[in-house]
């Protein structure tokens, strides 16, 4: 009996000791994940005998974790095998356990997986996406962009790579090509469900396959199945888009990372923000983020071939360092500086062309299926008449709505506060104002709008300064607060929304905005380095206003000055556009947006016959009618491709707006348009299967490509366990 008791006691002690050791390992691991400085583990003298050696030369065993300190002299130390397995770092990058997977040693300088490389105070995390190459060509106000994603399997077993990435919300994506070695396989557009089934079957049977789906108009998922160890697969996407033109500047933007979204309770089809390696969030789409002390080997190169057609007077890159190679007065090549190749902020290129204002311009493309009768597609940039600037505005009831959620913490909220203070200084005595702020709940400065007296504006500036950031992004509460109080009939209500737009319930927000809008106008300001432009542009469209963007490095003064310039003159409303001498049909958007000073509108449509004649635009300014004519010069005709795609993409966006405004089921219309024009949409997807490349064994481990946090956004308030998202 005594002996049994002793044995039991011994077993209990051993179990307790093991448990204690496990806890200690866990804390060490957690500490390591959070650490932002390199950890140096003394080398074993026996293993240093072969120095110098490079990363590729370093042997790694499945049970080994390597810590490398890279200094000016390269690799300096190699550790003994630590307690935790080398698999740890891989497991944390996947959604399923990947026991036994270890790095592939090959000729390519890929990071050795199963190892942790410390480089410039950051741990290098091996990921299956090695590089993204972006090449854009801008002609007039239309750009054609090719994005190549270079996937490579750095592990010792085959994998499925999953990458959630952004593209511009108005991108008409009409080309998808998978390249394996020197073989190019064009992806086929299919109904989404059908494409997903084909992909699942090909993946299950071991075929190399890829699938691209749309989660939001500006968020996409790329899946590449059955990538064998060391193998490379490139995915090339091409899209067309129209450029923004605002306040004398053209703007071309390329988003590089999806910001961490907040999903209010009850949201299931949102976009989850998860730490790298964590389990699924329960949302339809998940973005996995690298911790602040980590970075992946994924980098980006970007090149813009800008052919403005007229002299380029000035050009700036808002967020990135660039290299510029002029090729004439109207033509220049812009390249992203390789030193600035981490994909963690939007690339924003702005340029001004010769002449005080841009002229209304028509670009046409003949329809290859139009037959002998001609016909084709056009885009028309409708520029506001100059005399709009001479008209004074009514007094306004200005409502500033500030997002003070966790994702705005730090630089974004500082920038938003500066912008509101600048705007307060520009208000006129007859105006009134209110300040609403929202995070997990919404509150306001005063029970009712205040007159814009100097005293009140001073108090408002102090209120803005006192706002603290943190918490969720209950944007709907902010909208309700801003639009629910009684409307002052003597003033135009203008709502200025300052946010990064990091929410996952866009549709709910847009519907809520539409339902409450009445006569108000909404101007959205995207604050930050990687804002949700789909939400911000859509809010402006639904809100009969305009969107503007305030990057972290922007000076808020000119941005708010332009905004006040826009609201300081009445808009041209109830627009009607008539084409004389040109048989035009199917013009989108069907509800032509109001014209503001400094804010042209782009229309796109189809025509029969030849594109000649003139355009008459009529509208109302207050209660007065206004007409102006524009001649359509023949030399505006262009044979460039892309207008057809732009037309179909605009039609899809217009159908989406119709759904928000009316609730009509537009699924079939969107799907049919997308398939007919070979376009990506919410209801279609690109599928490519290589039926010649069948791999052996199971389909492999799914590896989510982790992405860096957007520049200026805090990980601890958004993604980290306990963060606000």
């Amino acid at each position, binding site marked *: 009996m005594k002996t049994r008791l002793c044995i039991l006691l011994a077993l209990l002690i051993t179990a307790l000791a093991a448990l204690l050791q496990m806890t200690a390992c866990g804390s060490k691991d957690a500490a390591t994940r959070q650490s932002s400085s390199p950890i140096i583990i003394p080398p074993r003298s026996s293993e240093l005998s072969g120095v110098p050696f490079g990363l590729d030369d370093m042997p790694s065993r499945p049970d080994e974790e390597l810590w490398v300190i890279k200094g000016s002299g390269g690799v300096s130390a190699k550790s003994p095998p630590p307690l935790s397995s080398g698999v740890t770092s891989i497991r944390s990058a996947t959604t399923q356990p990947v026991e036994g997977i270890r790095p592939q040693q090959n000729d390519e300088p890929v990071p050795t997986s199963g190892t942790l490389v410390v480089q410039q105070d950051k741990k290098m995390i091996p990921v299956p996406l090695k590089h993204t190459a972006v090449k854009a060509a801008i002609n007039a106000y239309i750009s054609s962009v090719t994005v190549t994603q270079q996937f490579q399997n750095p592990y010792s077993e085959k994998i499925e790579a999953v990458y959630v990435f952004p593209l511009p919300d108005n991108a008409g994506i009409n080309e998808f*090509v*998978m390249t394996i070695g*020197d*073989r*190019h*396989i*064009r*992806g*086929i*557009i299919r109904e989404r469900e059908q494409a997903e089934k*084909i992909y699942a*079957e*090909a993946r299950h*049977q071991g*075929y190399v*396959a890829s699938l691209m789906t749309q989660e939001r108009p500006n968020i996409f998922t790329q899946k590449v199945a059955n990538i064998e160890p060391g193998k490379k697969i490139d995915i090339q996407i091409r899209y067309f888009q129209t450029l923004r033109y605002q306040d004398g500047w053209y703007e071309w933007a390329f988003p590089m990372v999806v910001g961490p979204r907040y999903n209010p309770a009850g949201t299931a089809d949102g976009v989850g923000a998860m730490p790298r390696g964590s389990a699924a969030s329960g949302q339809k789409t998940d973005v996995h983020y690298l911790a602040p002390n980590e970075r992946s080997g994924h980098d980006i190169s970007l090149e813009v071939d800008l052919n403005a057609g007229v002299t380029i007077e000035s050009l700036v890159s808002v967020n990135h360092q660039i290299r510029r190679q002029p090729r004439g007065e109207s033509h220049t090549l812009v390249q992203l500086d390789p030193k600035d190749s981490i994909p963690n902020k939007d690339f924003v290129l702005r340029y001004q062309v010769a002449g005080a204002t841009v002229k209304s311009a028509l670009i046409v493309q003949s329809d290859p299926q139009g037959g002998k009768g001609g016909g084709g597609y056009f885009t028309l940039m409708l520029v506001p008449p100059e005399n709009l600037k001479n008209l004074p505005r009514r007094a306004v009831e200005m409502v500033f709505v500030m997002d003070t959620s966790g994702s705005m913490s730090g630089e974004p909220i500082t920038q938003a506060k500066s912008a509101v203070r600048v705007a307060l200084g520009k208000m006129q005595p007859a105006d009134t104002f209110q300040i609403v702020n929202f995070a997990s709940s919404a509150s306001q400065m005063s029970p009712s709008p205040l007159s814009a007296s100097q005293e009140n504006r001073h108090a408002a500036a102090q209120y803005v300064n006192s706002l603290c950031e943190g918490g969720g992004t209950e944007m709907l509460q902010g909208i309700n607060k801003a639009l629910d109080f009684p409307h002052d009939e003597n003033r135009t209500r203008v709502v200025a929304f300052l946010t990064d737009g990091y929410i996952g319930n866009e549709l709910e927000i847009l519907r809520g905005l539409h339902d409450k809008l009445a006569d108000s106008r909404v101007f959205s300001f995207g604050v930050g380095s990687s804002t949700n432009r789909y939400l911000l542009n859509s809010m402006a469209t639904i809100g009969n206003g305009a969107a503007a963007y305030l990057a972290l490095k922007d000076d808020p003064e000119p941005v708010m000055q332009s905004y006040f310039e826009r609201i300081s003159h009445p808009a041209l409303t109830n627009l009607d556009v008539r084409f004389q001498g040109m048989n035009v049909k199917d013009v989108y958007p069907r509800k032509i947006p109001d014209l503001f000073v400094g804010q042209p509108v782009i229309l796109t449509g189809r025509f029969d016959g030849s594109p000649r004649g003139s355009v008459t635009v009529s509208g109302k300014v207050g209660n007065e009618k206004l007409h102006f004519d524009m001649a359509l010069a023949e030399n505006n005709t262009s044979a460039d491709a892309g207008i057809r795609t732009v037309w179909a993409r605009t039609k899809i966006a217009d159908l989406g707006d119709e759904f928000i405004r009316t609730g009509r089921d537009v699924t079939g219309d969107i799907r*049919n348009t997308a*398939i*007919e*024009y*070979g376009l990506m949409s919410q209801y279609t997807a690109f*599928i*490519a*299967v*290589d*039926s*010649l490349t*069948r791999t052996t064994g199971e389909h492999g481990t799914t590896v989510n490509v982790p992405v860096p946090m957007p520049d200026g956004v805090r990980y601890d308030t958004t993604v980290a366990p306990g963060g606000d998202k």
Partner: protein
Amino acid sequence: MKRPVARTLSLSCFIMVLAFAAAVVAHGQSAPRSDVQAVRFESVDVFLDSSTHKLAAYQFELFATGGHAEIVGLEGGEHKAFAHAPYYDPAALQGDRVIVAAYSIDAELPTGKTRVARIHMQITGAEVPEYQIKIMETLGPGGEKIAVTAESR
């Protein structure tokens, strides 16, 4: 006498259970295999023979008779001039028609018989589809029409 009978019965039961388990396992293994046969992937190579003429552009329609075949990828040909993935008509795809086209402005263009495209298909069902090619257009470098013969395999 009772004990050997009981032992025999026990053994019989054990064998039956084992056989049943084996059958279940075998069934479990064969089920996915039949799924695999129900849906499979294959490729169709399309060859054009322009004899002595240089081939600069083509457009053809692919027909599949028997079986349910769906296009899941479109690959380029063997000659450098047509190595890039050809284009397809998405509108035609809505009507279950596969129309494929490509052109090349390369100085060096193929003559004679060349594989111009490889079409990746998903086949559903046990029936084996047969493919036919209907040439819609074939052009030389000057835009002149040229005669070709087509073959698929």
